[in-house]
């Protein structure tokens, strides 16, 4: 179509195309692309948070230091645990909920969709402070319920005990992560070609067979998208850590994202923090590519 246009029209398309794009492009280049470049560039320098201090280029020194930094390694380990636990759980849970509700009438369907989305809308601060109270050693309901149910005999300091703290964080993260995948799966499942499902049923296929052979391949793109957004979300787990444990006790809940914040704000090591940011971005890019590859193969 472009080739058949007259030169005058082509020029008009070029000019108007960029005019419409310009306002958005300014924001995008200024507040997304520029900081990304800054992030990569300063990760090779010893920059600190104060813009007026001179900085010098130090090559890969920040990156080398990272692999000897026990806190970073602990954060990396915890971040990987969070991702490995939460991604499959979120996917399976939301697929199950979505397949149980997608055939319902509009009213109940909306009700369930809203309920599972509410923890996201409520906001990380409000959600976190109420969970902090529920986990509380003396006044929290978890200790009360478990003690009265005879499951534990002594109060557990959930967030203060390195054995439980990370699991407690993951539990909250899960409740705030399933909302969007459920909405996506409901929409994907209701778009599945139902004549195929019916044909399979006529041929005597069981529900399970119909699901894996017909529906599953058709919702694969949605699964892939959910895998990727959940991975990104779990990698970025920050508010929960900052508000509940500050990475403690004894770094049991330290995550990369929290350590980046800590390095930049508390230690004022801007370049070092950004080197971690680059590593985090590379990790996410690799994982997304792998997931994409796996989904394509199937």
């Amino acid at each position, binding site marked *: 179509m472009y080739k058949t246009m007259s030169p005058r029209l082509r020029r008009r398309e070029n000019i108007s195309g960029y005019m419409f794009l310009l306002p958005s492009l300014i924001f995008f280049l200024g507040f997304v692309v520029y900081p990304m470049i800054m992030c990569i560039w300063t990760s090779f320098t010893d920059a600190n948070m104060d813009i007026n201090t001179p900085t010098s280029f130090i090559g890969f020194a920040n990156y080398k230091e990272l692999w000897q930094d026990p806190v970073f390694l602990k954060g990396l380990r915890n971040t990987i645990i969070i991702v490995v636990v939460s991604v499959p759980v979120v996917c399976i849970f939301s697929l199950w909920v979505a397949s149980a509700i997608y055939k319902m009438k509009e009213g109940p369907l909306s009700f369930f969709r809203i309920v599972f989305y509410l923890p996201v809308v409520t906001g990380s601060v409000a959600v976190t402070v109420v969970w902090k109270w529920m986990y509380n050693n003396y006044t929290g309901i978890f200790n009360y319920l478990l003690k009265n149910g005879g499951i534990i005999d002594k109060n557990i300091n959930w967030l203060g005990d390195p054995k439980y703290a990370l699991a407690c964080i993951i539990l909250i993260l899960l409740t705030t992560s399933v909302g969007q995948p459920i909405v996506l799966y409901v929409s994907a499942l209701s778009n599945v070609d139902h004549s195929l499902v019916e044909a399979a049923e006529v041929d005597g296929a069981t529900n399970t067979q119909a699901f894996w052979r017909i529906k599953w391949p058709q919702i694969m793109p949605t699964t892939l998208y959910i895998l990727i957004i959940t991975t990104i979300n779990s990698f970025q787990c920050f508010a929960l850590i900052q508000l509940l444990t500050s990475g403690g006790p004894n770094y049991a809940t330290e995550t990369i994202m929290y350590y980046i*914040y800590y390095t930049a704000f508390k230690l004022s090591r801007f370049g070092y923090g950004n080197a971690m940011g680059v590593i985090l971005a590379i990790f996410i890019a690799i994982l997304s590519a792998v997931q994409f590859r796996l989904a394509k193969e199937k």
Partner: protein
Amino acid sequence: MSKNNGSSLAYRIISIVILLVLAFLFLFPLYWIVTGSLKTQQAINSATPDWWPKEFTLRNYETLFSKRTAPLFQLGSLTGPTVPGAIRWLINTVFMAVMAMLLTCVTAAMAGYSLAKKRFTGRYLLFSLIVAAMALPKQVILIPLIREMSSLGLYDNIWAVILPTVGWPFGVFLMKQFSEGIPGEMLEAARIDGASELKTFTTVVYPMIKPGVGALAIFTFINSWNDYFLQLIMLTSSNKLTISLGIATMQAENSTDYGLIMAGASLAAIPIILVFLVFQKYFTKGITMGAVKG
């Protein structure tokens, strides 16, 4: 069909029971926030929880509103009447979310239309750049943004939170999806009629992408309201905080006064939940459209 009717009915009943239990568990934290904010200090600190407040009190809200005060607004040398700090935080938050929403909708609607329908050189490159940026973790750019905002003189200013929100390319991506549906003939017809580019956009394009703009508006509003990390790193002075940030600060200062903190949490959560409930149809649409072909 007939042979698995019995087991499928049993399965459906069991799954509905499980769903209802899950729904109860997901609603519980919210219930606990609201009822907790209305409980007496004594009930809050007791090791045996009151499942329903035995005695209702508004004392937590009184404490919340009397703890700090701030001017209602400051415009240059003009200073508004003194109000509770929490009210000022709420106003800051509404201002931030509304500005982020308006700017995002206008810029993204224009850019999405351009990327979907205009044949200009470099559009594939630009679109690839946008998609690539979206796959990266947003929070990685936050630390560099602090220094950028400091050099722009915007550190500790609500605009330091608004501008990066507008720059995030999800909106452009979403609006491009919606604009793909505009028939080329309609644009052609408008051009033949001699309509200017801007007129074509406002009279032909906009009415067609309106549902998309609605979805984007509500999506941006809620996300901006709840973007705690960005607010945390950009805003520091007490008068400039958002409601989430204010509650987080209070939590750090009075970490054991759960009644007070629940009152703050209610104030932060209830307005945004109401907005969500009113517009949830658009919201759902935005989430699903953003994922199609994503």
